[in-house]
């Protein structure tokens, strides 16, 4: 019974079509090597630079189901591992996403791990070292991860919060792959391909993004991400005027401050 369910589960979690990803500096090979050697991976980088897409692509490439958990500050260890539910007077154990991923031999991707509560990191520690085991405390069960299982976590080092630093004991269990926004040509190609705008518009969008990234630290916490550019590009491809599209998808998405918005709009109107 449980076996059939798991199989159905795995099928649902497997990616059917190749998610587009443009490899930049050997991260694909690195990830593959880590997977083969059963080493967990830490993806570092600013928001919207393609970390999640990369994991999806790798899951497809390696033919593994993918379990993605977007971590938030109320995410507890039992949200990940599983819990007892009470139904009709009986307590029934229900696997959490992490347990499911281990049973399936999937790739488990914990997005923005630092957002989760501290106790969650304790659960991933034994999974992340050579024990590769998940302790289900409440069931008194130890799950050993199959060789195909892999743990990947992501982390944005740009966040300026002391409560959201990744502990050394956690980070030192991972192989780290550093992500940044791609170089201008590659980024323009990605924007063009993902949004359907022409090359010249994509280049202009990337130019705008670079200008906003220049403002990081002088009023903006982060510059425009590749994702934002793709959003703006999609609007433009739909026939929205480039200036309007960028004001909506880039300027307003980046800031609420009037002065900053005015300056961003001036940059937009300079580029387009």
């Amino acid at each position, binding site marked *: 019974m449980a076996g059939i369910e798991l199989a159905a589960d795995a099928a649902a979690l497997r990616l059917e079509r190749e998610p587009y990803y443009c490899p930049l500096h050997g991260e694909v090979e690195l990830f593959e090597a880590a997977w083969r050697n059963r080493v967990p991976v830490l993806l570092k980088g600013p928001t919207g630079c393609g970390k999640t897409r990369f994991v999806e692509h790798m899951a497809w490439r390696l033919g593994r189901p993918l379990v993605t958990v977007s971590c938030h*500050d*109320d995410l*507890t*260890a*039992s*949200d990940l591992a599983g*819990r*007892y539910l*009470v139904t*009709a*007077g009986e*307590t029934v154990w229900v696997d959490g996403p992490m347990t499911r991923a281990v049973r399936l031999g999937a790739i488990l991707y914990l997005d923005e791990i630092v957002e989760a*509560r501290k106790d969650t990191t304790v659960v991933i520690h034994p999974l992340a070292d050579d024990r590769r085991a998940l302790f289900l405390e*409440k069931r008194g069960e130890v799950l050993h991860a199959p060789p195909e299982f892999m743990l990947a976590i992501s982390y944005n*080092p*740009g*966040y*300026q*919060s*002391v*409560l959201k630093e990744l502990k050394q004991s956690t980070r030192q269990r991972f192989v780290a792959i550093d992500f940044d926004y791609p170089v201008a040509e590659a980024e323009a190609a990605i924007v063009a391909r993902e949004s359907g705008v022409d090359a010249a518009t994509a280049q*202009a969008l990337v*130019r705008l993004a670079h*200008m*906003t990234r*220049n*403002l990081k*630290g*002088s*009023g903006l916490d982060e510059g425009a991400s590749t994702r934002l550019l793709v959003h703006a590009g999609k609007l433009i491809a739909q026939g929205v005027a480039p*200036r309007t599209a960028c004001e909506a998808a880039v300027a307003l998405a980046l800031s609420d401050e009037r*002065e*900053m918005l*005015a*300056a*961003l709009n*001036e*940059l*937009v*109107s*300079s*580029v*387009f």
Partner: protein
Amino acid sequence: MSSSARYSEASLGAAEAPLGAAELERRLEELVGAVLSSRRSATGLARGLAEQTRPLQDFVLRWTAVTAKSSPELAYQYAGLAARAVGELGYAGAERWLMTAIDVYDREGLYRASAELKDLAAFVGRAREGAWGVSFGKVAGVLGIFLAGLAGRRLQLAPADSAWTDTATLFLPHRITLFASRAENFRVYKVSAALLWAQTRFGTFALASAQYPQAPHELELLNLLETLRLAVRIEHDLPGLYRDLEALSRPALGAEFRAARERLRAPGATVADSLAALGRLPASARAPDWPFLGTLDPARALAVRQERVARDKQALRAALQRWSDERGEEGLPPPDGESLEGGAAAPEEVKRLVESLLQDLGDLPEDCLLPAGEGAYPARAQQAGAAADGADDREDGGALRYDEWDHRRGHYRKDWCALRERDVHAGDPAFVEAALERYRPQIRQLRRSFEALRGEDRRLRGEPYGEDVDLDALVRGHAELAAGGELGERLFVRRARHERDMVALFMVDMSGSTKGWINDCERHALVLLCEALEVLGDRYAIYGFSGLTRKRCEVYRVKRFDEPYDHAVRERIAGIQALDYTRMGAAIRHLSGILARQPARTRLLLTLSDGKPDDFSDGYRGEYGIEDTRQALIEARRAGIHPFCITIDREASDYLPHMYGAANYTVVADVARLPTRLAELYRRLTR
């Protein structure tokens, strides 16, 4: 011709043919016939209007009709002046001018209204100054950010009589009132600023001083040619900005510039090409009166640049010497040009200086690659320090001693700084009252957002959803079930957010450079912060710091951890003054010690300062101070403290990431925003 006339021309693309004088006369007679007589006909009006474009004629007729409903006399006068008013003010402006007159008519009658209409010049003046004029102060913030986006670094902006740059600062006019709309006037600012940036970016000052012309009229022409050359660069990457520039380039360029313009369109044209083109211009050539054209002052620009180059060169040589020493210790050969270009291993400082020099010179001259001894910082300051050192010796009783990091030696100077804790004298309580009054809405908002952070650490029982089964509830539920009742849903235990086990120490710059406005903002910021923190319940302390030489580092108690935020604390906040210098390292060491003794899971040290650490002895100014501060922060981090630095820095601050650690600081560029920013930053840091 005035610029606003150009504006109206530009916006008039008359498709329809203008009406003839006869037709106009007929229509005017219909509208204002009541005030015409044998001595006063519409013929003259119609004749004048017949020369105008059709949209303008329509505009005048329409508003004459509107005005005639109130007063045909006023309408008659309006019809006579309207064409000129549109020329001066644009359509929107002319409409406003008429509306003002009609308002006066409604209130005060025809006599005053017609006086108002006739005094068109006064209205134009007022309108330009007040309603549509744009001042430097209004646009500096937006332009500063805009330019930082273009340039990748903060550029210094300052008001001046005309737009020009000395390569360090971009000067822009005090006010621009050329056009009849704010948007147009702002556009002039934007294009001027972008062109000045382009001058520094694309090498307008790349030649030797002797190669530039001296005569003002020639410089004016060179400025124009450079603008043409830079416009081509702008056109490629910033087409929108280029369109603005084009739209403002009225009147059109004369035929005498055509050849020059073509030559300067060539890719890779430099300032030398502009100079060559200048030589070929006919003697009669005059630069057109484009509103964004400023002035060119190569002599001053070169002087400023030369100074910067000399400073960078000297600093680079000193940095190379230190790097060479370090490599020597590791058994590596001293660095040469190649290892610089390879670049990867070069210290951050060397890379930055090389980059700056490359931007200024385009190439690294041989002489700056020779490592040299120390000397990057002015010797004068060190002598002054030595004198002060001696004088202060006798005051050294009862002080705490702190080590100081000497980056040149790579060691600490033992017990180098003497530090004392002092009390801030109570200031005027009215200051705090005024601040509370002034920021009342912001405080209310801060309190609300801080309330959301307030943690509660509780296991909530009997929840419908949670991480564990609530056994008590389950047993009770079963009992009910057995008794024929229903099993309830509230059977789980959920743990609510954990408590904020956090202490924070705020360390406030009381150095002389904060005197005045910054000091006021610091004090306002502290008042707001305290108000917000009282809601949150985090334990916190506030200390000021200042000092004069290593013998007199001082830390001022504003609020200790064990003190409540009360009347005395408020008075001490009001009493924070600007004192001497910023020897930050010792203060950080002392205060991290205090913080480390506080029992808490998270300890936060927030420094609030206005730029570089600075003290006039031991060369603390500059690199030594930066390195010592950095080291003190590293020590704090080792002691389990999270330091975070807030800087009010009006200058380009490329040393900040090195000093503070890239992720552990923020710059508040606009001091006026500090009061609300500080509390907000704290909230974001600790959420």
